[in-house]
């Protein structure tokens, strides 16, 4: 609990990689959930991580976030990284702008928080209590809290999972825009194949504790979900995940 999570998990010289994982193993009660996993993420790359529930994708994200250090193997991550969880996890006893600045070194100005909130479209909610925000607004505030740290690596753990369909589309678009503006590497853990194909440069499928499949997405941005190539990629990935797409097409 007292660990400095801003430091790299293992100190190593800087490379052009944003994430470098080699031979990572994480076991729960002797049963490996992540088993000698390899992963590289380039700087500024948007990577989506798919997988069935319980496949260890959230565990991997927690390890990269420095929240789980009960690991074997090499894990290199940037000093500046930020996480947005599935639940917004705002401190209910702090107003939104204080939540955004929480944990920043020094004494940051309120204007810093306001700028980050404006970037996610919450400029006029800086003085609100978290309880007054809607689900989508709270999630955007959580995103602002991650972005204000100017991360080189942004870790997103199913950040749209709890949102309703319309809010989710808006939030996905927002994340896409923010990523293009900031140019940070993003690792998005999700179980939504469409979301992965829509946002990522590269989609990884995790199974049995390793990266079982890799799919580069070369579609132009902004992407169109009605594009036949989009549907083809989506179908391919669904098949990888063990979902029978023929039944869906019928």
């Amino acid at each position, binding site marked *: 609990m007292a660990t400095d999570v801003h430091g790299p998990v293992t100190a190593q010289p800087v490379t052009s990689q944003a994430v470098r994982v080699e031979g990572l193993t994480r076991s729960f009660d002797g049963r490996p959930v992540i088993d000698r996993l390899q992963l590289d993420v380039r700087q500024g790359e948007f990577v989506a991580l798919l997988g069935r529930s319980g496949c260890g994708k959230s565990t991997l994200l927690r390890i990269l976030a420095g929240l789980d250090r009960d690991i074997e193997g090499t894990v290199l991550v940037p000093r500046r990284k930020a996480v947005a969880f599935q639940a917004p996890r705002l401190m209910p006893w702090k107003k939104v702008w204080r939540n955004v600045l929480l944990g920043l070194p020094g004494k940051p100005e309120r204007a810093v928080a306001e700028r980050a909130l404006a970037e996610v479209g919450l400029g006029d909610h800086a003085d609100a209590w978290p*309880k007054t925000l809607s689900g989508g607004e709270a999630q955007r505030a959580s995103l602002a809290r991650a972005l204000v740290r100017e991360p080189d690596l942004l870790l997103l753990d199913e950040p749209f999972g709890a949102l309703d369909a319309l809010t989710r589309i808006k939030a996905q678009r927002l994340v896409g825009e923010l990523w293009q503006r900031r140019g940070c590497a993003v690792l998005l853990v999700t179980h939504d194949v469409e979301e992965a194909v829509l946002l990522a440069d590269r989609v990884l499928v995790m199974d049995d504790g390793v990266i079982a499949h890799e799919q580069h997405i070369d579609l132009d941005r902004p992407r169109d979900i009605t594009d036949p190539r989009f549907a083809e990629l989506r179908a391919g990935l669904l098949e990888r995940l063990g979902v029978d797409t023929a039944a869906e097409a019928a």
Partner: protein
Amino acid sequence: MSISHAPPGSSEPDISRISTSKAGPDARPDDHAPLDLVPLVPTSSRRTRVPRWLRRTTGPLVLLALWQLLSSTGVLTSDVLASPGRIAHVGWDLIDSGSLTSAMATSLQRVAIGLLLGTVIGTGLALVSGLFRIGEDLVDAPVQMLRTVPFVGLIPLFIIWFGIGEAPKVAIITLGVTFPLYLNVYAGIRGVDSQLIEAGESLGLSRWGLVRHVVLPGALPNAMTGLRYSLGIAWLALVFAEQINADAGIGFLMVQARDFLQTDVIVVCLIVYAFLGLLADFVVRTLERLLLQWRPTFTGR
């Protein structure tokens, strides 16, 4: 034999209407019989003329009038219970002579010191055992054991230890206040959402930062509950402490009145105790309103 719809023309109007409209050969979908519409009266116009506060004060006032009636007719003698008028008079005299105000000041001071000491000790112990695992191992078990001892039972021991001055009285109040605060603050600290702690860690908070920004604010609602319990117990402890060897304070006034069969003075003292309790509750409520306005369940204001 099965129960069927009533035949047309039956004496049961509800069922017959439905069955005729269904079975009738001329029935068309738009051939509706005019509906009997019922106006929905807004609640505001249904409210009675008498305002709520007046209705709520009626009960106590009636009781008071009854009491006065019984006293003035001689059913209730002043040896048993003085009349409300007499009590008001005596209360005014006691305030006028300054003896009630000085007694109140003495009692308030005892409670304030006991509450302060108890809060510091209870919260301090809860922090030690809530925040550190070693603290839990060392502190929690003895506190849980001591908690089961009825604190009032310690009065004789405290008199031997501290004499008959202010010290044993304050000590009793302190002891009574410490345990509810300890239990609630400890439960509050341990009940803080682990997801929020993890979020705090991911934001780069240090251990002290986590305690300050996540754990302590998260434990605050429980701490306020503990404070409320403690206040209630503080008055109780005060009453016990002041009945023994007191030479000042409300309890002393009461003991003195008992010796002279002054039921009026005793009732005045009881009213003062109740009033002080209400005042303390009001202070905690105000504190909660100020400190816990972030709570989703908060409905005050």
